[in-house]
Every structure is written in structure tokens, then in C-alpha cells.
């Protein structure tokens, strides 16, 4: 399942990440669904990515205002108070330079256009799976 360097050795009492990185990778997951946040955070953490997960755009902005920074921010395209494009636009306005990825099970074409126009970099399909996020993490780790 794991691509790149995989570490299968498990230290007693602690779970060793499934991958190791040259850099300390940090991810922020913005998703209205708590089930998706729990699973997504567990996945990314198991692959050695320090991950925060929040429910909406405002919570993401609060983290950024408090000085947090991330290599990648994965944004649910369909949230209550603001959608993925609105969240991306505000993050760019705040000066955030992280990779911004829109996430959904499916996309309407206009939603994709709006997200990219708002400063988004691309998309990742829900449900999250290593085959989808590992190549992105490898690219970020090499830059």
C-alpha cells in the first residue's frame, strides 16, 4: 500500500509512521464531517504527517492567525458557512502559500473552476487514501 520508503518496524508502545520524510510535513484538514476528519487525520498521521483537523473555514483561519503553518491544506468543497472556494480565497488573502487542495466525493464543473480561480491548486477525491495523498506529499517533501 505505501509508496516510497516504508518503515514496517514498530517500536513497542509507539506506532512507527508508515513513511518517513526529509522534512517535517504538516497538513490541515478542513472538513464539516467529523467522521471524515477522524479518518483523514488518522491516515495522514499514520504516514508521518503532523495533522490538524478542523470543522470549518473560520477554525482554519483562527489557526493561521495564531501562527500555524502547513505544507498542505485539504479543504472540503461543501461546508455550511463557506464553501471550498470561499475558504481558499480567504486563505490566499491572508497570505497563506500552502498547497490548497479541494476535496469531495464528486465535483460540479463550476465548483472546480471557482476553487482554482480562488487560488486553489488542485483536487483530491474523498475518501482519502494513501494512493491519493502520498504522491502529493512526496512532491511537497522534494520541493
Amino acid at each position, binding site marked *: 500500500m505505501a509508496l516510497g520508503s516504508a518503515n514496517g518496524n514498530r517500536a513497542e*508502545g*509507539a*506506532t512507527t509512521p508508515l513513511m518517513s520524510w526529509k522534512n517535517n510535513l504538516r497538513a490541515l484538514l478542513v*472538513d*464539516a*464531517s*467529523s*467522521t*471524515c476528519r*477522524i*479518518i*483523514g487525520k*488518522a*491516515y495522514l498521521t*499514520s504516514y508521518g504527517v503532523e495533522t490538524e483537523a478542523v470543522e470549518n473555514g473560520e477554525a482554519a483561519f483562527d489557526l493561521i492567525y495564531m501562527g500555524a503553518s502547513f505544507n498542505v491544506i485539504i479543504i*472540503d*468543497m*461543501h*461546508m*455550511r458557512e463557506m464553501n471550498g472556494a470561499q475558504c481558499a480565497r480567504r486563505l490566499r488573502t491572508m497570505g497563506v502559500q500552502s498547497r490548497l487542495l479541494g476535496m*469531495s*466525493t*464528486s465535483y460540479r464543473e463550476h465548483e472546480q473552476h471557482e476553487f482554482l480561480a480562488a487560488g486553489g491548486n488542485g483536487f483530491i477525491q*474523498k*475518501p*482519502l*487514501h494513501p494512493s491519493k495523498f502520498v504522491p502529493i506529499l512526496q512532491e511537497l517533501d522534494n520541493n
Partner: protein
Amino acid sequence: MVLPGLKQQLEHLIQSMAIEGILVEQQFAQVQELQNPDNPNFVSRVLNDFCNGAETSITELNKFLCQEQVEFNKLDISAHLLKGSSASIGAHQMFLATVELLKAVDKEDKEKSLEALKKVTHEYIRIQYKFQTIIQLENKIFDIESKPLLHDGKSAAGPSYSKNI
């Protein structure tokens, strides 16, 4: 019931759900793989969260559809939320039912949306019962596995670790 028996029961239940078509076994297996010594109750926690979230979403969807002037944009968001959660956990029939609901919402068709929501609710009830059984089995397995072993390899008697369901 001994540990191997419980694990076998759990495995058979998941397999039967996959055969019935209500669970994507591969997707659910990925969730199970995330359970580890740092996160020993992960599966129970996720399933409980899914069920709580689904009930909240279904209640919300019903509320929106009962309004005289239906706010389809709000319906869209709640339906997407349910669709995403269903996909993440591998709840296949629920996922398909929410796809149909979203089609009806896209067309702003109240009658079809109500019909689709009934199907979503039916599929939720169907899977929720089985998820509760999985949670019970997972908790029993956790109880046995978390008991310290005596020198002869048998589990110690005494209170098991308590945890919230």
C-alpha cells in the same frame, strides 16, 4: 466467549455485510488498519461518530424538506456531508442513496428529494444495527486484549478497562 471466536464472529459479520452489498469491505478494512496501540478503540470511535453524524444529518434533511419554501442549497450541503461520511466508512448503499438524493436536490424536486431521503433513512437503519454489533464485538475484544496476562499466559481476572461507547 474466547478471543478467537469473537474475532471470527466480527470477520463473518463484516463479510456478510459485504456480500449483502451494504459495506465496501476494502474501504472498511482501511479503517480497521488505522486501529493501532496508540488508537486501540479507533473502529468503535469512528462507527459511533458516523452513526451520530448520520442521525443529525438525516434529522436536518427532514427539517429542511418539511419547510414550505425548501432551501435546496442547505439540503445540498447536508446531503454532501452524509455522502462523504458514507464513502469514508464504506457504507455503500447509504452512499448510493445519498447520490440519488443529491440528484433530486440538484433538480430542486421536493417530492423526489423526500422519496430519496426515505431510502437514505432505510439504508441508515439497516447499517446502523450492524455497526452497533461491530462496536459491541470490538469492545469485547478490546476488553480481553487489554487485560494483563498472568505468568501462565492466561488473562488476569478483574475489572476491564472502561471506555465510552
